[in-house]
């Protein structure tokens, strides 16, 4: 029961209360660009969830070794990128050799594996001292966070594109950034973080 609670709480934390993308900024470029090309959304979300979950679980397991725990930030970065690279190669093999995926899917695989969000998840787990259940939760939560952010941004961009009330200078990326800022502010409020103005 405790394991399930930890997993769910970590997933909720990563996706809603501390949305890694909107309150942390990790993977913001990928979320905004995916929001503009939403056809890729589901596959990309699936791959991101897969990579972040598997990488964070393996990295938490490696943290059990005293030598790994003693490493600094750069040492951890090397381990995390090695783990991520290994997971990527395995998934790439499965997707191309076994499932016979198209080149477009393979390209998405690269975008999903190597982005700031997926690499940040093991770091966040390491900093927060997450257990395996929590690591799974944060991995799944980061995928959910990506999907939530991309869908919310997409819905906003659709209105922005149609609106005639937006001044010429603000059309396009300026309006998108301001919209994402407002979304980010909303999620900061959800996280309960205060601001002293």
């Amino acid at each position, binding site marked *: 029961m405790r394991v399930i609670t930890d997993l769910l709480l970590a997933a909720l934390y990563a996706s809603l209360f501390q949305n890694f993308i909107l309150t942390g*900024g990790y993977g913001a470029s990928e979320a905004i660009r995916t929001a503009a090309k939403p056809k890729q959304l589901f596959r990309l979300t699936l791959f991101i969830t897969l990579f972040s979950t598997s990488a964070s679980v393996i990295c938490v397991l490696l943290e059990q070794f005293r030598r790994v725990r003693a490493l600094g*930030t750069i040492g951890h970065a090397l381990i995390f*990128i090695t783990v991520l690279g290994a997971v990527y190669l395995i998934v790439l093999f499965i997707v191309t050799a076994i499932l016979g995926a198209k080149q477009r899917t393979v390209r998405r695989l690269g975008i999903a594996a190597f982005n700031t969000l997926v690499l940040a998840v093991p770091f966040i787990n390491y900093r927060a001292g997450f257990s395996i259940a929590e690591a799974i939760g944060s991995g799944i939560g980061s995928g959910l966070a990506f999907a939530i952010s991309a869908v919310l941004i997409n*819905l906003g961009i659709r209105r922005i594109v149609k609106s005639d009330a937006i*001044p010429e200078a603000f059309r*396009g990326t300026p309006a998108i950034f301001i919209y994402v800022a407002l979304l980010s502010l909303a999620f*900061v409020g959800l996280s309960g973080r205060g601001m002293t103005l």
Partner: protein
Amino acid sequence: MADKMSVREGVRNSAVIKNPVLFEAIGIAPVVAMAVSVKTAIMLSVIASVELVIIESFACLLLKKVKQSFRVLIYAVLGVLINMPLFMFFNRFAPNETANVSIFIPVIAVNSLIALHCERIAVKNDFRTTLVDAISAGIGYVFIIMLLGILREVIGSGTFYSFDLKFPVKFSGLLLPFGGFLLLGFLAAFFKNAIKKKYPDEKPEAAFNLSEISEMHFDEIKTAVEEDFNPFVDFFAAKDEGGETAEAEAVPEKKKSIFKKSDKKEKPEKEKKSKKAETVEAEPLVDVQPVKDEKPAPERSGVYESEFDDILAELEAAKAKPEEPAEEAIEEIAEEPADETEGGDEQ
């Protein structure tokens, strides 16, 4: 001269008109999250630009024949390897600032700016073009990081390079990623306006393609929720077909009037009255009997409402006439529909 021009054009295109952060929305994560002071901005700028130049050059010289799926892995590993000495260098000279941005330094290794420029330019062009692109995109990226770092430190912390400016008010919210996005939005608008004035033929907004914005599976989900999982979908479909299905018959009279209420409001008063005149004769008052007429369901539900309105109107009229006994008027009204129903059935 021609070479000089092309370098100039390259810088103009990659650093200004297609600024990677402002107009292409790439490499945003470190900018919004960590460019909160001049010192961190300098660190991020140095690391990002060095990485960009080295990895792009490496990709151009050695990775052209490597498969795309393996190249992205090499960019990431190379990025972390380049980060190592830079991290150690900054950790030695600015340990506090390095500790603040410690997660983001390795994370820059998988910055989308690097992968995109390598794939777009480095593996498709010669070394000179690649180098020009790497330097100019780096300049554009560094410029935005520095500008944002200065603005956020001055407005958010009231300091400049840790020197207290003694501002009476500090907007510390700008130090959060939301502040970064907000400032990016205003900077993008400012530079877009400036570019349009200086280069009227250029379109900075073209760098971010929004043509596919409406093509989303979200619509498919919405359709599935509205149609496949909607318990009332059969009822509405039956109404559209003319109320012939059994489900439509089973729906109680009250429910029908609720669903049609909004439609009824939109109808003009004259049209409503004429419709009433057409249908009142044919309509059974009791709905549970099988329908013999060919009237569609919406019309029938409209009949009940119009009848009800009619009864109310006549009641009010009866009240308004003091000479006519009220009880008689009510009896007349109550009898009328029954007669009409019989007549309708006969027809």
